[in-house]
């Protein structure tokens, strides 16, 4: 715990009095929360920015992002309710954030929704922001847990999640691949962003590995038989990922806005509310079902394919309709939107 002065005397001649209250820093809080998850048997993986920090790649984000095993959301909600209890408990203040997202509910998380909370563990600490994923974007929880250790998402899981439309995320992908590549792990070829790193990794991969990885990232065909040029393919591929992410996100956002409009039409609409977390959770779980927030906004394989096709149309707009370029840069649907 760190300590901060709350009050101090003004006059140099008077005894300076300090009233100290403990405060929790974002790093301390993340460790505290990790330990609680472990103690309560909630299977969870730290991911995104704070995971990069653990890997030695600096991100100054204070948020913590967690992949929660879809079967453990009830345990997580129980943990949070328990932490909020006063007198005999930790007396945390916990709120769902007033941004779009779904409750901590297994069914919604299986459909790709996320949940966002603010937690204040002691009054003098800043609010801690936590994001939860039951199915991380561009991955499945099953895959993430299968390849990761107990508490920290594997580097390549983080890299796959970082294929967003935010510029700041792409250097992270490259750095994580460099780290994995230094252990001679050929899987880094699935995500590496620079021609130099790709070439270095390619030399370490066996023929079998190359064939397998090429199926998951068709761009790798350019390593042995260049046709469009690696730089052009890398740029087009990144744009494709960015557009797919935008399309995916818009679907969730659209459904959430429609849901909020339906909910708001009710006379007693109030959200967010300052109630205990168990009441907030009950309220939002009831609302999403009563006002029909869809469980799975991406709409199966057909809906997902449509998102990819829209993204491909942007590629054609930017790079022209070179025969074969789209095939060369488009990973299979199960890699982009599993």
């Amino acid at each position, binding site marked *: 715990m760190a300590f901060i002065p709350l009050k101090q005397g003004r006059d140099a001649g008077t005894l300076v009095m300090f009233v100290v209250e403990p405060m929790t*820093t*974002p*790093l301390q809080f993340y460790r505290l929360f990790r330990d609680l998850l472990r103690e309560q048997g909630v299977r969870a993986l730290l991911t*995104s920015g704070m995971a990069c*920090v*653990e*890997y*030695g*790649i*600096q991100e*100054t*984000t*204070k*948020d913590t*992002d967690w992949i929660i095993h879809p079967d453990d959301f009830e345990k997580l909600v129980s943990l949070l309710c328990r932490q909020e209890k006063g007198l005999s408990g930790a007396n945390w203040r916990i709120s769902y*954030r*007033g*941004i*779009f997202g779904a409750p901590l509910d297994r069914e919604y998380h299986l459909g790709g929704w*996320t949940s*966002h909370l603010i937690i204040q563990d002691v009054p003098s600490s800043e609010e801690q*922001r936590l*994001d939860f994923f039951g199915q991380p*974007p561009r991955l499945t929880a099953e895959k993430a847990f299968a390849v*990761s*250790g*107990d*508490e*920290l998402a*594997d*580097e390549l899981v983080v890299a796959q*999640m970082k294929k*967003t*439309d*935010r*510029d700041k995320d792409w*250097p992270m992908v*490259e*750095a994580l691949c*460099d*780290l994995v590549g*230094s252990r001679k792990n050929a899987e880094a070829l699935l995500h590496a962003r620079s021609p130099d*790193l790709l070439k270095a990794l390619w030399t370490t991969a066996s023929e079998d590995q190359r064939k397998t990885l090429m199926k998951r990232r068709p761009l790798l065909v350019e390593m042995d038989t260049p046709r469009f040029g690696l730089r052009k393919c890398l740029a087009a591929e990144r744009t494709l990922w960015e557009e797919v*992410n*935008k399309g995916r*996100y818009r679907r969730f*956002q659209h459904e*959430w*806005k429609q849901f*909020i*409009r339906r909910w*708001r039409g009710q006379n007693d609409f109030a*959200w967010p509310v300052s109630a205990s977390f168990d009441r907030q959770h009950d309220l939002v779980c009831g609302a999403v079902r009563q006002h029909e927030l869809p469980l799975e906004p991406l709409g199966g394989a057909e809906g997902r394919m449509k998102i990819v096709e829209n993204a491909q149309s942007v590629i054609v707009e930017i790079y022209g309709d070179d025969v074969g370029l789209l095939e060369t840069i488009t990973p299979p649907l199960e890699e982009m939107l599993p």
Partner: protein
Amino acid sequence: MNAKNDPMNESHPEHPEEFYEKLAELFGQEKADWARLPYEERMKELERLHAAFNTPDDLSYWPPELGGDADAVERSEPFPK
């Protein structure tokens, strides 16, 4: 966490020099130097950065239905994860 990916594990091998060079190339020398620090020192330095700077929250915009900026959601750039 396992022996492979536990950064606090003292037996965790040092990263090759090329990794730090890559970090310098991608993020600048300061962040590469930070990565070279032992784990505990790295985290102390990060605590100092957290205390000194308020990092932007990329999920903070509110939709119009909840009293936020009506256009912010539509034009929000970049989108969250």
